[in-house]
């Protein structure tokens, strides 16, 4: 298990968003976190990526405890993420946006940058090369020099993915990657996710689009009202009466 989460709990001012959630993500797999609206999926996500501090529970990534690490430190370990509300860096071009993602693998600091030492020149060349590779991978090469703010939504999503992939992460957290995408764009997304898996990168995604989740996932974890409800392969989950109950509200079991 590349990522394990144990007893993760989060309470805000009397409201419990997550209670005692435990699961593991197997390396090289695509795992999905699903659940009705407000179930607590994004809360769990934010705890794993470091934006929220858990009230209780531990997380381990590659065997390393995560709890004490800040978000940028987790990213440095190879844990990348995308955001549901797309956040490109508006002041930079598409290429530069992706190059930012390469940050953790670069060594240039203030001094070497100011004097343009050879380590800087090498860093820049590597960053540029890798960024172009990723832009190629997601099919945005022609946009490389353009300002990132004006891209259509589907392409902005792809840009986020490229930015997450350029640093050769071990695990990528995809936060509702299909949100706001039309059918064609969603199909492209599914293909992209498979290609990412082929590269050996592990994927954990939070998603609402059920058919997409069923298509793409090796394993699904169902969260309801902050608690883990069920876990299993897509078929197991599809036929799990507790899950059906949670979504349809009908007594089935």
């Amino acid at each position, binding site marked *: 298990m590349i990522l394990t989460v144990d007893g993760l709990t989060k309470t805000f001012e009397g409201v419990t968003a997550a209670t005692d959630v435990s699961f593991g993500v197997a390396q090289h797999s695509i795992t999905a976190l699903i659940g009705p609206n407000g179930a607590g999926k994004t809360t769990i996500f934010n705890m794993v990526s470091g934006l929220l501090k858990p009230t209780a529970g531990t997380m381990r990534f590659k065997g390393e405890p995560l709890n004490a690490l800040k978000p*940028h430190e987790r990213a440095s370990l190879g844990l*990348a993420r995308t955001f549901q509300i797309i956040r490109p860096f508006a002041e930079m071009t598409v290429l530069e946006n992706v190059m930012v*993602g390469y940050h953790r693998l670069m060594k240039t600091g203030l001094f070497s*940058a100011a004097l343009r030492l050879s380590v800087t020149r090498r860093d820049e060349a590597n960053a540029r090369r890798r960024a172009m590779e990723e832009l190629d991978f997601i099919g945005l090469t022609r946009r490389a020099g353009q300002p990132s703010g004006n891209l259509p939504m589907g392409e902005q999503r792809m840009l986020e993915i490229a930015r997450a992939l350029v640093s050769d992460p071990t695990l990528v957290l995809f936060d509702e990657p299909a949100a706001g995408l039309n059918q064609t764009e969603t199909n492209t997304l599914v293909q992209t996710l498979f290609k990412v898996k082929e590269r050996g990168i592990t994927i954990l995604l939070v998603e609402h689009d059920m058919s997409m989740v069923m298509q793409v996932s090796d394993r699904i974890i169902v969260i309801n009202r902050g608690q883990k409800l069920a876990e299993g392969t897509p078929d197991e989950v599809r036929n799990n009466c507790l899950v059906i109950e949670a979504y349809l509200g009908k007594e089935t079991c």
Partner: protein
Amino acid sequence: MKRTALFFILFAVGIYLLPLLLKGSYWMHILVIIGIYIIGAIGVDLVVGFAGQISLCQASFFGIGAYISAILSNTYGFPPVLALLIGVVATSAIALGLGLPVLRLRGYYLAIATLGFGLIVQSIFVTLQDITKGPDGFRNVVPLSIGGYVFREVTEYYYLVWTISIFILLLTRNVVSSRVGRALLALRGDDVAASSVGIDITKYKTQAFVLSAAYASLAGSLYAHYNRFISPQVADLSNSITMIIMAVLGGIRTVYGVIIGAAIMKSIPELLESILDYQMIITGIILVVLLLYMPQGLLGTAGSIIAWARRRRAG
């Protein structure tokens, strides 16, 4: 961008040749002042433009550098270059000490905290009269000397200041077009996303802030030795605002824009001598009009127009 490099080389050559044309006229003095303020203003661009942190105390660091230089070289007989270096180190340390708590703040709070710091620094310069010679200012600051060579003529300062200025501009341009610059832009744009790609927000904000303070200190020391007179006025909020205007007017994040900004802001008082009293009014109006109608500044707007024209031609 090769074209910008070419323009800059031409500009630098022009700067070196200009004294032959001006031959010690009063404009040489203005140009020295412009050169000094370029160093302060590019610091502002780094912190405010690139890192997006609203710092209103650049003049405080300018003043600290100026006073340390004046005090150490006059009162304690330090060689001016040593005093200058000590000034830069001390100012950087102060900036670090201030930055660590204060850079955690956002928006208005950061602005007000730096504003408050600025008022305190200025009031220290006024109150510690025994050391700083108080509100009437510090006279007869020792001229700059390197080795045995004493800088006395305007022309000598001109070459020294502009060489330093050009060097600082190049250094800064290198920084902003590197991983560091992108990290600053990223944390300015969206610090949550930035930390998610591994950028240590605190580290980069602090680096920009301290470097900017070091620049300001350097500029302040040069000013002290060149002008031979400093007063608490150099650390005034209005001086910080002037440097911000220089960065915005020239074109925020264009790096070279500060040359234009500094040139205009320091020429205005000279060109409009009779209305010296109205300087503050004009400064205020310039800032407001700039921000409302031309926020990208001169170089920035020119750049946008060129890019737009290119796109139209490309169809």
